[in-house]
């Protein structure tokens, strides 16, 4: 067990494929071709978002732990951005919308938590969800983004089936605690940039 100083209680790891993400490429094509709200969708990115709560190391030791385990990402194919402060430079353009989609019945990652405890001796909570980053040309409103998110029928919605998943929408100022801030029936909209 390392003797590092432990101060952090919360961190996010944003994981994205280095190559074009096939799911995002396909979803973009389908949204543009089949959904009225998707006609002005210009780009679509998909990231896996981890939130870790507990006794966490700071800085590089935290990044190294995430790097070391395939429980989090594959550094040969994916990049990982660690976020530990709410006020950090945005990872996307100012007019983008970021959508969090998570399983309604929980998104704890027990295997990742076991790995962390084995490696560090510390107990942490690991939660995982998917984040979609949408940008429109011309800039899209919150309503347009929402219509692309929530599946209602074959012509409306794609990214979240509300019968099994919860969602939240933010501007670029994504909350630092986002997955774990949205407990339970998380269909509420997190206030972000006004549309």
């Amino acid at each position: 067990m390392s003797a590092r100083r432990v101060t952090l209680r919360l961190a996010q790891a944003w994981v994205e494929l280095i190559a074009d993400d096939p799911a995002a490429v396909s979803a973009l094509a389908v949204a543009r071709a089949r959904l009225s709200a998707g006609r002005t969708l210009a780009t679509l990115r998909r990231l896996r978002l981890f939130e870790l709560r507990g006794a966490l190391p700071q800085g590089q030791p935290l990044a190294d732990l995430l790097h070391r385990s395939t429980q989090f990402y594959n550094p040969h194919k994916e990049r990982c951005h660690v976020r530990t402060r709410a006020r950090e430079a945005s990872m996307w353009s100012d007019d983008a919308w970021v959508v969090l989609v998570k399983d309604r019945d929980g998104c704890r990652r027990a295997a990742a938590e076991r790995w962390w405890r084995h490696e560090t001796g510390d107990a942490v909570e690991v939660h995982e969800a998917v984040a979609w980053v949408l940008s429109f040309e011309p800039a899209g409103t919150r309503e347009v983004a929402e219509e692309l998110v929530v599946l209602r029928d074959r012509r409306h919605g794609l990214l979240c089936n509300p019968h099994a998943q919860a969602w939240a929408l933010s501007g670029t100022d994504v909350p630092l605690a986002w997955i774990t801030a949205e407990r339970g029936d998380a269909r509420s909209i997190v206030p972000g940039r006004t549309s």
Partner: protein
Amino acid sequence: MSLAQVAVIQFPGVNCEAESVRALKRVGLEAVVFRWTRRASELRDFQAYLLPGGFSYQDRVRAGALAAKDPLLDVLAGEADKGKPVLGICNGAQVLVEAGLVPGGESIGLALATNRMPDREGYYSRWIHVRIESSPCVFTRGIAPGTVLPLPMAHGEGRFTAESSSVVSLAAAGQVPLRYARPEGEAASGFPDNPNGAAADAAAVCNRRGNVLALMPHPERAQDLGALARTVPGAWGERRDRALAAGEPDQPGPGLELFSALRRHLEER
């Protein structure tokens, strides 16, 4: 009388089309693989449809989510509205649910969510038992309620669920024609009888009319008695043993019951 033509619809990533065609042919139906590259309007020439299992579009976004937006589904929905039978098996069931054909209505009414199992997560595969329930479903037509069929299941997202308690309501309305059960036919008592945590032990859900069925287990993989696992007990297990002893492993298995029901329905129309 000419044989009814069934289109087995193949999206990229589907991998159960060949055995599905074989099962349909074994009960006396004509069946062809209809690939996503064909004109959607050609679907109207068929009398029934089957969406087989697999991983359409690699399960991108969600299992079945992208295939559900394909223009083929618009034609399929129109033909289903006319009363033509549509069976979705496993990934096909996910497509029907994501497209809103099951349970039907104005908007999406269900999801097939990630399996919920004690002490494990993700993909799960095993032989399970389903009990036939009273239902207008054409795919159980002529099969006595209470009949138990052993079938294999193999999926990661097969848990019928809804925002409200509507799966229970669907069961009360006869729209859950197959439920997970114990081998003797009693109600499932949790995992592993119910292998994924589905509400109301639902192994399948149909629309109100009964002509569209989303079915998670794989009947096409249980079309030969010899394919039944050694662990399958009871009458079907005894039949399997006799078939194997006689050197005839391809005698009709329990999965063919559902395809035979489709044939009966098509013959009576």
